[in-house]
């Protein structure tokens, strides 16, 4: 009895502490690993396979090679339109979000009495995303009775028809989203509060004024926050869906037909799963390319303070 148990224990290689720790590590992260395969890696691979097929969910998928991609790039004017809408929105919204976010953060970083109240007010809207947020703004933009046109009327200006006017609808959506600027503001504010005051004192001794201090101290030290807001801003705006689906459903005249809204229609209204998957993969690659380009060039403009400071 005793000798056999010794023999079996001899056959199993004895694990040293490091190996046991490694096994424990993989045990700990195993939920994430399984989830990664089931909900990320698997779907991404499946999505690429679907993109090579024609599939309406009712019959089995038909392999069509690159047909979906060819159709997307050459024969679908609406897809091109939706890409343009998304691109214009991203190119206008992301810089505006960063400029307003940074300006507000600079204002709110002043050491003034009651500044906490202001921080709360500016940050609050950014936790309120979703349908209710959009419905509220649809009422704000109501051409006859909405607050915006009412205020314009006080000033003697006849306001546009906003969400109902193809020329104004996208601008209205941009204004609507800018109400949530608190999200990027709070990241800039955290970055600002992390800048050691010593640096400003040194700059003052060197005779720097406010302007110089901003360009030579504040902005360089905020570049990590800028990078973060830039990358997540681009990733999020490329995926704009809810705001357009609820406020305009792509209209009027497709002026707010965002790429993901069109993708959703193709998949879940027209049941063209293959084509929609091809659209998803194109978006995936575009965003990946943008992110990589920004990351790779960030070494030139992002300034990291050395550790140990």
């Amino acid at each position: 009895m005793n000798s056999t148990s010794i023999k079996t224990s001899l056959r199993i290689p004895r694990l040293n502490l490091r190996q046991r720790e490694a096994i424990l590590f993989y045990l700990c992260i195993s939920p994430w690993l399984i989830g990664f395969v089931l909900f990320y890696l698997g779907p991404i691979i499946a999505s690429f396979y679907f993109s090579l097929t024609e599939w309406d969910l009712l019959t089995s998928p038909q392999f069509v090679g690159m047909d979906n991609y060819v159709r997307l790039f050459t024969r679908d004017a609406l897809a091109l339109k939706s890409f343009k809408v998304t691109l214009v929105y991203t190119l206008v919204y992301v810089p505006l979000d960063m400029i307003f976010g940074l300006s507000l953060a600079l204002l709110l970083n002043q050491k003034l009495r009651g500044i906490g109240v202001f921080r709360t007010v500016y940050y609050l809207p950014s936790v309120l995303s979703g349908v209710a947020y959009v419905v509220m703004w649809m009422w704000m933009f109501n051409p006859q009775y909405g607050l915006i046109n009412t205020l314009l009327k006080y000033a003697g200006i006849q306001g546009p028809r906003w969400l109902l006017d193809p020329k104004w609808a996208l601008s209205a959506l941009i204004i609507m989203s800018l109400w949530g600027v608190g999200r990027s503001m709070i990241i800039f504010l955290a970055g600002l509060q992390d800048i050691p005051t010593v640096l400003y004192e040194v700059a003052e001794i060197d005779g720097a004024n406010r302007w110089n201090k901003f360009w030579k101290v504040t902005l360089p030290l905020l570049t990590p926050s800028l990078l973060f807001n830039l990358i997540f801003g681009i990733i999020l705006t490329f995926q704009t869906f809810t705001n357009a689906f609820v406020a305009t459903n792509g209209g009027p005249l497709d002026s707010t037909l965002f790429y993901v809204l069109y993708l959703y229609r193709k998949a879940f209204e027209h049941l063209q799963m293959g084509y929609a998957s091809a659209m998803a993969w194109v978006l995936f690659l575009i965003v990946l390319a943008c992110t990589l380009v920004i990351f790779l060039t960030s070494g030139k403009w992002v300034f990291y303070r050395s550790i140990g400071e």
Partner: protein
Amino acid sequence: MASRNSYNESDFLQPSHWRRNIWNLIIYLMLIMGSLMFILPLFWALSSSFKSDYQVMQYPPQWIPSPLRWQNYPEALTYVPFWRFALNTLFIAAMAILGNLLSCTIIAYGFARLRAPGKNFFFILMLSTMMLVEPVRIIPLYIEFNKLGWIDSYLPLIVPAFFGSPFYIFLLRQFFMNIPIELEEAALIDGANRLQILWKVIVPLSKPALAAVAIFNFQGVWNDFLYPLVFLHKQSNYTIALGLNFFRSTYTVHWGYLMAASIVALLPMVIIFFIAQRYFIQGITFTGIKG
């Protein structure tokens, strides 16, 4: 201390202080004007939620409607079963928060404290999934959950939470790394195993971070629209976001009702924000996003 003593009234009259006071005044004015712009939409929605169809169309508008039409609330909330939608959403949120707190704590502990070959690779892989474009997953997920017979149930919105979410894992990992390791070493010497350490040492010290995860998670579920839209079809299963969207598409002209419903849908997040504001801010600080 010295600087505080020197801040007396004669200094106050010196030119440099005048300049500082004018500068502060300008900043206050800008802050107040900006605050008005940020508060007005909410105030306008609240004001409209107490107006009848007739009052809504008046010009100039009544900022504080008289009479206040309280009935908008009970009437709007019974047109569609709003409380049902709210309860559905609360149930999903509670289960998702439970799943995320359980799984993310364990996963984050692994990433924060245990050494193993391949750890950095998996950590970076996990972070990179945060940047994934969601639409690339949604079609295969729909097909996957459809095969499992989960469509029109809450499982697609709850089960993935039990496998952790990258942002919450990252947040907790950053927090755990700042807990002095000596506390754990002391417990190890006393004969505690890793699970006991996690439960008795790490979790009690990490309440702010866990609270931040719960709040972010609640916010995510409460505001989520695309996933419920794809996975839930029956009206009795609707979340608050789906319910409000349904309400909007049916009763567009009754802005008083619509604003009453919107205020009810916004209220939980507003209340949570005021109660737990510091956790929102801390959540960002923990992750060290600030750079």
